[in-house]
């Protein structure tokens, strides 16, 4: 049992006092961030990355903190979805469908308990899946050549839109824009300065973290300024302690949702929203005999919650083993790992076992912490939702500024961040998703380098990209996925048509 002993070693890393404290803090912060409308996991993690630098955390502890926040966000997103019909983040959109009707019927406590339990089941199963499959994939990934990596990047871009993005042309354009931004700066192979327009500040290119904080955090405040604000959200009062019996309802739906969500999460690019959508769709198909779905069926709450939590665990697999993120938030984590000089990929498991297994072990612990935070202590979070937006958003802006300034100490980067904020706002208004932009910016250099290596091997013949069997399989999966999402988008167009919420 090689995996088991590695996992045990991981637990010895995870229970160090510092890491335990980070797990607790991250879970708490994450649930809060997930619950607050407008700040999703991507924004939350992006804003807090500078904090991990500020605290001087080593890569392992930094990853533990961010993953605990990530898992916490996935739990937290459901709170506002159920209580106020506002999804705290995009995957929670599916939870509103049956969760809010349950709350209207006076079963808010049950809905929160069921979804909390479903989140736990989904996230725990996904963590077990991560434990089992990540080492296997890492072993297989050692055989991946440059052409195969190039195919993987193509897959990530083709699938990132999932079915959440309305227009596939826009998803692709957004990815291409990210790739264009990634080429700014000195070309690593030839030293030619590209698209710098004579500015020495641009020789290093755009720092992904600066771009990320701008795209997500700064653009958010421009959104809030659009409309006249009408008071704080109304939080229903009353006892939110669940009945114990309600915990077991929807267990079957949770298990099925977990499997679907996990698979969706593993696909590079696809992400948590897709996991939630697919699991809800499947559960509706299997269980909706009396037409109760959409009217407050507990199984309609359990399935998407299990699905999105399982997807977030699954999304860590391609990020750690291949360096290709499986969701928006893991893309942000990848940016941080690269900034800390840790290159994710198959060799990470050999070179950095402490990081990988410490992270996996802390995910188990984080799930337990989150279960406690989200069942008995749920009232704490619902009370915090009463915090007015005018106090919250300016704080987010100031923390973004000081975080970026702390990393780079350059006023130029602050201006770049504001510029990315405006860009992010305009793109989101035009119905372009920001995740592909981030992915392009992050993966652009690696994509070019792998293309370069593949062509060096073949002597400049582009056919080398389609000669490897692994690459062909990846292109096949990509095509299958695209046809599936096309089919699904024809079946459920209205569901996701005008979702104007932040992304996973």
């Amino acid at each position, binding site marked *: 049992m090689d995996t088991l002993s590695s996992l045990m070693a991981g637990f010895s890393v995870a229970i160090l006092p510092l890491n335990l404290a980070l797990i607790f803090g991250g879970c708490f912060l994450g649930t809060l961030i997930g619950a607050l409308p407008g700040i999703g996991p991507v924004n939350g993690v992006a804003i807090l990355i500078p904090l991990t630098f*500020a605290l001087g955390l080593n890569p392992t502890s930094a990853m533990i903190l961010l993953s605990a926040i990530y898992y916490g966000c996935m739990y937290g997103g459901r709170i506002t979805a159920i209580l106020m019909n506002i999804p705290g983040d995009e995957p929670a959109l599916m939870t509103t469908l049956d969760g809010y009707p349950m709350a209207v019927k006076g079963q808010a406590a049950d809905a929160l308990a069921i979804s909390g339990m479903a989140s736990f089941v989904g996230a725990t199963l996904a963590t077990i899946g991560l434990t089992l499959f990540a080492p296997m994939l890492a072993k297989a990934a050692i055989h991946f050549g440059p052409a195969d990596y190039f195919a993987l990047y193509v897959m990530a871009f083709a699938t990132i839109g999932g079915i959440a993005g309305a227009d596939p042309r826009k998803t692709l354009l957004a990815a*291409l824009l990210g790739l264009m931004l990634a080429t700014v700066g000195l070309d690593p*192979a030839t030293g030619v300065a590209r698209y710098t327009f004579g500015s020495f500040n641009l020789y290093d290119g755009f720092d992904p973290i600066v771009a990320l904080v701008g795209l997500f955090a700064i653009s958010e*405040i421009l959104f809030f300024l659009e409309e006249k604000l009408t008071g704080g959200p109304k939080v229903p009062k009353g006892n939110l302690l669940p009945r114990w019996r309600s915990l077991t309802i929807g267990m079957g739906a949770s298990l099925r949702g977990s499997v679907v969500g996990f698979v969706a999460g593993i696909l590079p690019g696809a992400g948590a929203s897709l996991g939630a959508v697919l699991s809800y769709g499947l559960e509706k198909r299997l269980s909706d005999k009396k037409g109760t779905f959409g009217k407050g069926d507990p199984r309609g709450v359990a399935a998407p919650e299990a699905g999105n939590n399982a997807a977030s665990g699954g999304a860590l697999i391609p990020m750690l083993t291949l360096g290709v993120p499986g969701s928006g938030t893991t893309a942000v984590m990848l940016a941080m790992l690269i900034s800390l000089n840790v290159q994710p990929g198959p060799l990470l498991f050999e070179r950095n076992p402490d990081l990988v297994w410490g992270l996996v072990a802390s995910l188990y612990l984080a799930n337990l912490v989150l279960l406690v935070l989200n069942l008995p202590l749920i009232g704490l979070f619902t009370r915090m939702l009463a915090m007015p937006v*005018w106090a919250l958003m300016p704080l987010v802006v*100031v923390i973004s500024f000081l975080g970026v300034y*702390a990393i780079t100490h350059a006023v130029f980067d*602050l201006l770049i961040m504001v510029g990315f904020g405006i860009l992010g706002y305009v793109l989101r208004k*035009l119905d372009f998703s920001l995740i592909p932009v981030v992915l392009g910016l992050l993966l652009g250099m690696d994509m070019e380098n792998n293309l370069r290596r593949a062509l060096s091997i073949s002597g400049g013949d582009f056919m080398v990209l389609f000669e490897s069997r692994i690459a062909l399989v990846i292109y096949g999966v990509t095509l299958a996925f695209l046809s599936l999402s096309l089919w699904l988008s024809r079946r459920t167009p209205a569901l996701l048509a005008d979702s104007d919420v932040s992304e996973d």
Partner: protein
Amino acid sequence: MTDRVAGLAFVLLAAGYVWLSAGYTASFGDPLGPAIFPRVVGIPAVVLGLALVIWPGHNARWAGRDGMIRQAAAVAILIGYALLLEPLGFVPTSFAVLLGLSLLMQAPPVPAVLTAAVAAPALYLLFDRVMGLPLPLLGTAFG
């Protein structure tokens, strides 16, 4: 249709991007060269942008006039924050930014002043003193 404008913007951006790539040459034997990848990226972007111009799908609703004024004011505040952070220091600029943005978000004035007055020094203490992130308390203008 905003999609047409967006598509056109992408066409122009990507075309300029591809056109500029012609100037990037390396004299030694790199199989790809610095110009090919920008073309691999830029040419599909031109095509997709054109497709968006010809078959637009989405029409964005922009903020109303008041909203636009608030957004412009916020951008001005953010740029001012970036430019004045070093000369004036973290605490005074952050106080002004917190107050300005919360007033833009229609905060009641007295709680907004109090929040900003507490939060700006508190953030300084938390990040500079507790976490050891060097921030300029007062800027060069006061030093």
